[in-house]
C-alpha cells in the first residue's frame, strides 16, 4: 500500500471518528434539551406571567435597538417594542450613522425632538451627535451617532440607558408581546443570573400587525424554510442543551437581556469583531470565573423574537461568512479559556466543542466529501461502504432536525397548521442534499476571510414586514 493511500485511509478514519463525536454530542444535547423542555413545561405550569405586568417589584428594563440602514423595518420594530407588556421600560433606538432614511423615518413616525440630555460614557463609544425624545412616547429615546458598528451602537445604547437591565434586539426583528416579561423572569427567580437569551424564529411571511405577530406562517421560499429548520435546531436543542449544562457561550445579538452593571464592568461590547454577542458572553464568563462569582447565564425557549432571514443566496452567504468570522474572532479573543479548568464547563467542554465542532466543522466536512471521492477513485474504500456511511450521516442529520421539530411540538406549538410542521419535516430531509453543503462552503469561506483578516458586516437586503407591504399595496 502506497504512503498516499495510507494517509488517505488515516484521514478517512479520523473523519469518521470526528463524525461520531460531533453527532454523538448533538444527540446527547438533544436528550438534555428534552429534559430541559420538560422542566420548562413544569415551571410554566406554576408561573403566572400576567401578574408581574401589574407588579411594582419588577426591575425596569431598557430595550436597545441598534439600527444601521434599516429604514424599511425600523418603524414597525419600534412600534412592536413599544407595545410590549411590561410594567416599566424604555426603548433606546441607536441610529449607527445610517446612510439611508432610518433616522428620518423614525423622526417622522414618532414626532421626535432633540433634547439636550446628558449621560456618562460608562463604556467608550463613537461620538453621540444627538438624543431625541418623543412626546407621544415618553419612554422612547433615539440616539444618533457616528457609525462604529453594531457593538459600538450597543455600547452607546448602554451608556444612554437608565435601567439596571438592558435587552438588545435587532432592528429587523419583532418580539412577542409577553416576551419581555418571560425573559426577565430568570432575573426575578435567581439572583445569580447575569444574562438571559430568548429564541429567535423566522418571521418572513408571518402577518405582523401593530407590532405583533398575528399569524405565524411558513414562508413559501425554500431558502427561508431551510433556515427555519436550522433556527429550530440551533435554538431548541443547541442553546437549551448548553444552558442546562451551565455552558451557554452565546446569547443572540437579536434577542438577549443583560445586567447593565455586569456589562459595564467588562467594558461593554468589543467593536473589532463581527461576533460581538458571543465575544461579550465569553468575556463575562471569564470575568465571573476569575472573580470566583457564582453566576448563571440562561436560555429560555419561550420568549420569542421574530426576525427576517435572508431570502437570496448572496445575502445568506454574506451572513453565514460573517457568523463564521464572528465565531472565530470570539474564540481567538478568548483563547485562554480553551481547556482551562479555571473556567469550569465553559473552558473544558463548551470552548473546545465550539472550536472543534463549530469553527473547524466546514473544513472537516468538505475535506470529508473530497477524501471520500478520492478514496473511491483510488480504490481505498469500496462503494457500498461509502454509500452506507453517507446514508447513515444523512439520516443522523435528519434525526437531529426532526427531533428539534418534535421538541417544538411537545412544547410551544408556534406553527398552528399541521401542514406547516410536516413541510418543515420535509425540509429537514431536503436540507441534506445541497443546502447543508452550501452552508459548509460559505462557512469555509468565512474561515478563510478570518485568516485574511477581512472585516465588515456586508450589506443585507431588507424587506418591509408583511403588514407594511400590504398597507403600501392598498395605498
Amino acid at each position, binding site marked *: 500500500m502506497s504512503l498516499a493511500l495510507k494517509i488517505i485511509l488515516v484521514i478517512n478514519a479520523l473523519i469518521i471518528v470526528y463524525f461520531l463525536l460531533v453527532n454523538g454530542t448533538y444527540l446527547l444535547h438533544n436528550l438534555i434539551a428534552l429534559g430541559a423542555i420538560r422542566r420548562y413545561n413544569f415551571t410554566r405550569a*406554576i408561573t*403566572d406571567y400576567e401578574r408581574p405586568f401589574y407588579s411594582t417589584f419588577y426591575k425596569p428594563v431598557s430595550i436597545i435597538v441598534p439600527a444601521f440602514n434599516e429604514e424599511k423595518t425600523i418603524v414597525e420594530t419600534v412600534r412592536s417594542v413599544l407595545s410590549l407588556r411590561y410594567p416599566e421600560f424604555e426603548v433606546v433606538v441607536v441610529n449607527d450613522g445610517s446612510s439611508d432614511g432610518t433616522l428620518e423615518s423614525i423622526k417622522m413616525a414618532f414626532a421626535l425632538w432633540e433634547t439636550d*440630555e446628558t449621560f456618562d460614557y460608562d463604556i467608550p463609544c463613537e461620538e453621540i451627535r444627538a438624543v431625541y425624545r418623543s412626546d407621544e412616547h415618553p419612554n422612547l429615546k433615539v440616539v444618533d451617532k457616528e457609525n462604529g458598528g453594531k457593538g459600538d451602537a450597543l455600547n452607546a445604547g448602554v451608556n444612554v440607558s*437608565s435601567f439596571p437591565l438592558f435587552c438588545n434586539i435587532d432592528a429587523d426583528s419583532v418580539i412577542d408581546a409577553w416576551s419581555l416579561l418571560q425573559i426577565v423572569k430568570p432575573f426575578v*427567580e435567581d439572583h445569580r443570573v447575569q444574562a438571559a437569551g430568548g429564541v429567535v424564529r423566522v418571521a418572513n411571511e408571518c402577518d405582523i400587525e401593530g407590532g405583533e405577530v398575528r399569524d405565524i406562517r411558513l414562508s413559501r421560499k425554500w431558502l427561508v424554510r431551510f433556515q427555519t429548520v436550522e433556527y429550530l435546531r440551533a435554538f431548541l436543542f443547541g442553546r437549551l442543551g448548553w444552558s442546562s449544562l451551565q455552558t451557554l457561550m452565546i446569547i443572540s445579538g437579536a434577542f438577549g437581556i443583560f445586567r447593565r452593571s455586569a456589562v459595564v464592568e467588562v467594558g461593554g461590547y468589543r467593536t473589532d469583531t463581527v461576533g460581538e454577542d458571543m465575544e461579550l458572553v465569553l468575556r463575562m464568563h471569564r470575568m465571573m470565573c476569575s472573580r470566583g462569582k457564582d453566576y448563571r447565564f440562561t436560555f429560555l425557549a419561550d420568549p420569542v423574537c421574530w426576525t427576517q432571514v435572508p431570502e437570496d443566496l448572496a445575502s445568506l452567504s454574506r451572513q453565514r461568512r460573517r457568523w463564521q468570522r464572528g465565531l472565530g474572532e470570539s474564540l481567538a479573543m478568548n483563547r485562554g479559556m480553551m481547556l482551562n479548568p479555571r473556567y469550569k464547563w465553559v473552558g473544558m467542554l463548551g470552548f473546545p466543542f465550539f472550536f472543534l465542532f463549530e469553527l473547524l466543522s466546514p473544513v472537516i466536512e468538505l475535506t470529508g466529501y473530497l477524501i471520500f471521492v478520492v478514496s473511491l477513485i483510488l480504490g481505498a474504500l469500496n462503494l457500498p461502504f461509502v454509500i452506507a456511511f453517507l446514508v447513515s450521516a444523512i439520516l443522523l442529520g435528519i434525526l437531529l432536525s426532526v427531533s428539534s421539530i418534535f421538541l417544538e411540538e411537545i412544547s410551544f406549538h408556534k406553527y398552528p397548521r399541521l401542514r406547516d410542521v410536516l413541510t418543515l419535516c420535509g425540509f429537514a430531509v431536503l436540507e441534506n442534499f445541497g443546502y447543508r453543503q452550501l452552508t459548509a462552503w460559505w462557512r469555509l469561506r468565512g474561515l478563510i476571510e478570518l485568516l485574511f483578516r477581512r472585516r465588515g458586516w456586508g450589506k443585507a437586503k431588507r424587506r418591509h414586514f408583511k403588514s407594511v407591504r400590504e398597507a403600501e399595496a392598498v395605498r
Partner: protein
Amino acid sequence: MLTALIYISGGLLAIILMLLAAIIVRRVRYDRYRRRYQARTRIWEPLFFSYLEGEDTGGRIAATLRTEEDYLSFVKFITFYLKNLSGEEAQAIADLAFRTGVSRRLYADLKSRRSKRRAVAATTLGLLNDRNVLPYLKRMLEDRDPYLVYAGAYGIACLREYSLFMPVMRTLLSRTPITYEGASELLVRFGEGICPTLADILREALARYERVSEREGEILGRDSPAKENRLRESPGGEPGSGFQVDLGDFVEVSMLVDILGYFRYADAGELLLQVMEKSGDEEITIHVLKAVVRLRTPQAAHRIAPLLDHPNWVIRSQAIRALGVLGEKMYRPDIQARLQDRQWWVRHYAAQALEALA
C-alpha cells in the same frame, strides 16, 4: 463495518419515522384537546356565571366533569378566575371546587410522584383557600426542588397563614436562589397583615444599629462586616422562629421596605425615614423614597429635601418625585432649580412635580 452501518441506518430511519409519527399524533391530540377545551369553556361559562349569581348550585357543572381531562381542564378554567376574583366570589369558586370533586382530585395530585402535578395542586389549593392542605404545603417547603419549595410557599401565602410567614420568608431567601423582587411578589400574597411583623424586623435592625454605633461608632454600610447576608446563611430553624436583618443587608432591607410601601402601611412612615437616614445606603434610599410616595408620610418632605442635591441622579429624581407627590410647596424653588439638572429624568420629574405643585 458495512453491516454495522446498515443496521445503524435502519435504526436511525426507524427512530425518524417514530418521531414523525409522534409529531403527527401529538399535533392531532393537541388540536383535539384545544377544540374540546374551547367547547367545554363554552358550556362552563354560562353555568359558572349563573352559579356565581346564585342561580345554580353547581350541580350542572359537576355533571359535565366525567373524565380526567374534564377535571384538568376545569382546574385550568377556574384558576383564571381565582387569580382575578376575591372575597365572596373566590369563596364561591372554592365551594364549587369542593362540590364538583376538584379539591379531592387536587389532594390526590399532592401525593403524586410527578412534581408538576404536585406544584399545580399546591398553588391551586392555595388559591382555593383550602386550609386542610397546610401540612402538605409545609412539607413542600422542605423539598429539595426549589420550584416545589416555591409552589409550597405560594400556596401558604395564598392561604394567608401568618404563622408560617417567617418560615416561608426564611426558606425562600435561604433555600432558593430567588431575588428579593421575586420574594416580594410572593410574600405580598400573605396580605397586609404581615406589615407589623416586617416593621418589627426593621425596628429591631434599627435598634441594633443604634446599640452597635453607640458602642463602637461603627457605620453600617455595604462594606461593613454586618452586610454579611444572615438570611441566606441561616440553616433553617423552627417554624415561627424569627430572624434578623442588619441595616447593611441592603437587599433584604429593600425588600421589607418595598412590601411596606406596597401595602401603604402608614405606621411605618417614620421608621422607613429613619432606616434611610441611618443606613446611608443608596439602594435603600431609593426604595424608601419610592415607598414614601405610596405612604405619603406627612413629615417626609423635610427629610427628603436634602436629597435634592444628592450626587446619585436616581436619588435626586426620586426625591423630586416624592416632593411633588407630597405636595410641599415650600420646596418649589429647589425643584425649579432642578429643571437645569444634567440628567433628563431629574428634569422630567422636576417638571412633573412643579405641575403637581402648581
